[in-house]
């Protein structure tokens, strides 16, 4: 008998200058993280419009994580400071609406932190796996 194990779909928005390079490094160092993490490269963490996060959930993501340069290290100097406020408020609102806050996360990962990238993703995937499928912010019209 085959048991269908739940594998969460994770969308990771990674800024071009730090976190995407961090993900690359994780790859070249052959560090493992689940293949269910789909990386979307953005120029800067502050490019992530709150709508992107909702859209990802709509299209079937079970968790959304945003990765950027460490505060103070943004390629555009201040982008991640704005992203930090925006995402904090958005996540708080999702929580207020009763949507599991554990499905959202922001993590700062530099280009040298391949190991941190892999560890972060493993941890996030584990958290979302425990939560199960995203039911509260899914769009049935998008279900195949």
């Amino acid at each position, binding site marked *: 008998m085959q048991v269908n194990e739940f594998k969460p779909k994770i969308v990771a928005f990674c800024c071009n200058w730090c976190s995407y390079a961090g993900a690359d490094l994780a790859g070249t160092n052959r560090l493992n993280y689940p293949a269910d993490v789909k990386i979307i490269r953005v120029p800067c963490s502050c490019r992530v419009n*709150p*709508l992107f996060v*909702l859209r990802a*959930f*709509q299209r079937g993501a079970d968790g959304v994580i945003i990765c950027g340069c460490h*505060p*103070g290290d943004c390629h555009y100097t*201040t982008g991640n*400071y*704005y992203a*930090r*406020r*925006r*995402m*904090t*408020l*958005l*996540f*708080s*609102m*999702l*929580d*207020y*609406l*009763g*949507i*599991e*806050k*554990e499905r*959202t*996360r*922001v993590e700062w990962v530099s280009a040298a932190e391949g190991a941190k990238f892999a560890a972060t993703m493993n941890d996030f995937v584990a958290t979302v796996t425990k939560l199960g499928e995203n039911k*509260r*912010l*899914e*769009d*049935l*019209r998008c279900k195949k």
Partner: protein
Amino acid sequence: MQEVMKNKAKELLASGEVRAVIGWKKGEFCYDITPAVFTNAEEIDNGFIYDDFCGANLSKYLIKEAHKDGKVLVFLKPCDTYSFNQLLSEHRINREKVYVVGVSCDGKVDIEKIKRTVGDGIIALSSDGDKISVETLYDKYEINRADALAERCVNCKSKKHVAYDELLGDEGEVLDSKRFDEVEMIENMTADERFEFWRNELSRCIRCNACRNVCPACSCEKCIFDNDNSGYVNKAPVTSFEENMFHIIRAFHVAGRCTDCGECSRVCPQGIPLHLLNRKFIKDINTLYGDYQAGEDPEARGPLTSYTEKDPEPSVVTDKE
């Protein structure tokens, strides 16, 4: 008060100081007072009204009116002056073209609250101080004015006019309002209860867009909700996702700019407590980034267009118990 205002309007029109007056006039029923533009003394004599039902915030009408030639007079209640300031700081209104007359306010009445007691068929209303007398097709009633006040007036944040050229009535003060109590109550529920609570509220939304149209902060020339290709303009095939999405985005777009004027909740035909979404953002901003009242100071930098290096990390939300 109404007579003083009419005289002021006629005086400024006659002197040529202003070209038009933005005020309120009677709608179809005695309680549905609507915003109106007056251009001569006759119109003012026949139509101008200032009473318990002048809830409408007139500041948004200035965006269009103040782009025309000449000056306009606008009457603003204390809460409306915050919206006015906010619009100034967003460069939506040309200050030179507006003559603001601040009018004092002792709270506006919510007709829905009256209807809950007297039912339908209201034909006449009059208020004297603490009591409101209501006449319906079937009976006569007397109601305590305090019981009929709109939610935003019960929890009024300020009776102070933060912008005016002239003031009719007394200068009020910033009040110690209990407006965040209900937000706190919701925060204290479990996630499941919160989800149920909001499903129950938001699933009633008919996507009439009234809350967006009335909001002074929601004045984008091109609104994302008007995009036919977005897949969320039409209520028929809607799912719970779309309802959540609309409300999160609407509230998020005004976060940091919403003055809590209460117009969105006032106009919602479905009685959805939209202020509880807006106030959540205001409350979060106050606790995380320091007290901020949008519209208080038109020169101030908004909380979402500024930052400090010591801002808390998003993990204060995602990791909280």
